[in-house]
């Protein structure tokens, strides 16, 4: 009888799934459901619904471990509530906000090594370079998120669907019910040609370099993941550089910008994006519970797409 594969839960894109898998665990990037009722984070006002939902869902799963990161202050502090409200071993990965210095890059690499030691304490095995490279090779082009619910299907480029209005969706992470955003865009005659949310293309690391993967796979893994652009980085110019390239490639006529209430990092980017993009931008916020927002959202998206036609 073989031992069941044990799961490690996480949600932040800066957690390399390959590193978890190489230690013998099943990485599960969790896309949470909104929290209704009792929660291990009792307060609602002022709390990012995504952070609240993640710790609540993660605590309720039968996982071997949970990884939280310091990508935002709310997640960093939600970790404290998680360790109070759950017996599952949890790990807080320090993800530096600065990214241009060797010291910050080094710190991220060291944090991955520390994560490795945590996984070993949970019964995992330290992978050899070859084993890690092998796992990394399996990933291919798309993100290695075996159990994550798919929020949006393969993106069709504008040339392939000329009858639809091409739009980009930009923002932080999305919860399961937020897929309604994509449904409403399609229902209103649009087509998402760029999913630049954390749970979309933007939250994925670049493709691995084969040569470097063979030479020093952990270093290559760290560089690829640390290169993910995000609003919370300081400065976050890499986010705009990435957006510039992707918007040029995909050619949307407008941008739907999504953020959660109380998510400061993304909320603050809306005005800047409007100034920068040179495209119409529709800002939509949500409490994470798609059901309550759907009527308002439908009207707004419909009007926005009508304007773009």
């Amino acid at each position: 009888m073989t031992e069941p594969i044990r799961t490690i839960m996480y949600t932040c894109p800066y957690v390399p799934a390959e590193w978890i898998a190489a230690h013998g665990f099943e990485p599960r990037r969790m896309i949470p459901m909104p929290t209704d009722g009792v929660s291990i984070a009792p307060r609602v006002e002022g709390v990012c619904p995504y952070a609240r939902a993640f710790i609540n869902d993660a605590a309720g799963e039968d996982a071997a471990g949970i990884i939280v990161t310091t990508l935002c202050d709310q997640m960093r502090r939600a970790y404290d509530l998680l360790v109070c409200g759950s017996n599952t071993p949890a790990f807080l990965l320090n993800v530096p906000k600065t990214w241009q210095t060797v010291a910050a890059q080094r710190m991220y690499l060291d944090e991955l090594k520390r994560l490795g030691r945590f996984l070993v304490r949970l019964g995992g095995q330290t992978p050899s370079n070859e084993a890690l490279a092998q796992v990394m090779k399996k990933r291919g082009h798309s993100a290695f998120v075996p159990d994550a619910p798919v929020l949006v299907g393969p993106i069709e480029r504008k040339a392939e669907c000329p009858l639809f209005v091409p739009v980009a969706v930009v923002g932080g992470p999305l919860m399961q019910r937020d897929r309604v955003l994509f449904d409403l865009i399609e229902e209103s005659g649009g087509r998402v040609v760029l999913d630049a949310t954390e749970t979309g293309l933007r939250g994925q690391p670049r493709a691995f370099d084969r040569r470097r993967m063979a030479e020093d796979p952990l270093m290559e893994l760290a560089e690829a993941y640390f290169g993910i652009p995000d609003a919370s980085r300081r400065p976050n110019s890499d986010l705009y550089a990435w957006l510039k390239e992707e918007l040029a490639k995909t050619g949307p006529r407008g941008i739907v910008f999504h953020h959660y209430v109380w998510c400061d990092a993304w909320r603050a980017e809306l005005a800047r994006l409007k100034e920068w993009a040179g495209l119409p931008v529709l800002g939509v916020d949500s409490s994470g519970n798609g059901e309550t927002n759907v009527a308002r959202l439908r009207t707004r998206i419909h009007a926005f797409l009508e304007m773009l036609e």
Partner: protein
Amino acid sequence: MTAEPEQISMEQWDREYARLRTAGLTEPVYGGPLSRHVADGDTRLLKLRFDNSPAALRLWNFLLTEEDRLRAARESGKKLVGAMKDLGTVPVMAYSLDTLVAFYPDGAWWIPCVMELNTGLLQIADSLGIDESFCPVRAMLGAFVTEAHFPLPDLLTCSVGATCDDFSAIAQRLNGLGHPILWWEIPHRRQAEPGEQAVTLPGGFETPRSQVEFVKSELLRVGVALEELAGRPLDDGALAAGIAKANRVRKLLDRLRHLAFTAPLCPMPALEMLIAEMLAIHFCSDQDETILVLADLLAEVERRVEAGVGHLSTDAARIFWVNPVADLQAMNLLEDCGGRICGTEYLFAHALDPIPTTLSPMEALAQMALADPMVGSSFDRAARVVGDIRRFGAEAVIVSRIPGASHCALEGEIIGRIVREECGLPVLEIEVPSITDAATATLCTRLEALVETVKDRKE
């Protein structure tokens, strides 16, 4: 010349000022009657009650003339360093170079209160997409746009990493408007793991040696920028002298806090003590004068304690206050409701601890930066609060939430839980906006309920 301790209004202060002048009061250059600041727009002063000592008058005048000092410093050829999200590290470095003056742009968060929303700073922040879902420190954005509250600094630094999302996002917005920022990273403080060398930080928290080394490297980067700006090296000798001066400020504050929080009668009201504590993190743009202002205040407090005089009654409820308030009037309200401050954690308890002088200066500063209660877990912060509750003998705790601040929504739960478990004290969470007028009745009801609970427990 010195009257009995009393809390007086602005109008009363004007009369008292005239009396003091006649009696021979001498003042520094920034002295004068408090009411002149009202003419400059600081209308909230009309609603506050102030301690009636000349030392408190000097403190207020020092605080309210910072902008003049910054402009004078620039005119004299000094370079200005805006140290953002920095609770007592970069200013110590900057003041080690005599051609630099550091200030705290985040201090603009009190402008909407002091000027009673008349400046339009929050509206400017709104127009830049930084609305009321952010902490009132968003007023800083407006201050940068108008340039009406402080001159634009020659160098802007900002700590990021284990800091609040609000400020980080606001600073990024500022950066996006074309203000260059030197970002330096402060990692989330964690415990050393097996096999890692641990360092005990000033204040008692522990962290691995690797984190201290990392922060040291970040501060060295800041140091290079300061050297370039000053046009002279920032060597260990200069830093050690800067640290010694910062420690003089901290020593004065330590004595001041001890007396103010433990004397049978409160020798200095909460409002003046809040202002005094704030001087520790940025020196109000003049480190030497800060020392004189605090020394004056301490002398007054010592005199009162010695004479057995003070404010409030001996049975005032002894309250420990967590987080600074956006509306200064809240401190008056607590006293109106029968409470007195006996311990504080205004987000920078570490900046009141002496900086170690037995270590290399950069090592000492790195350790101090990591000792910040806000860069660690809420459990750490709660532990610091519990330690200080015991030190000062507080009887209840108020966790004062800052509207919109990312840390406030989550940490209060843990701090409250630990304080109840460890100290068995009642804990009250309140939210204090920039102007509390509309909520005064509710706020007072809650404060009175806490005070009553404390008094009931004594009986």
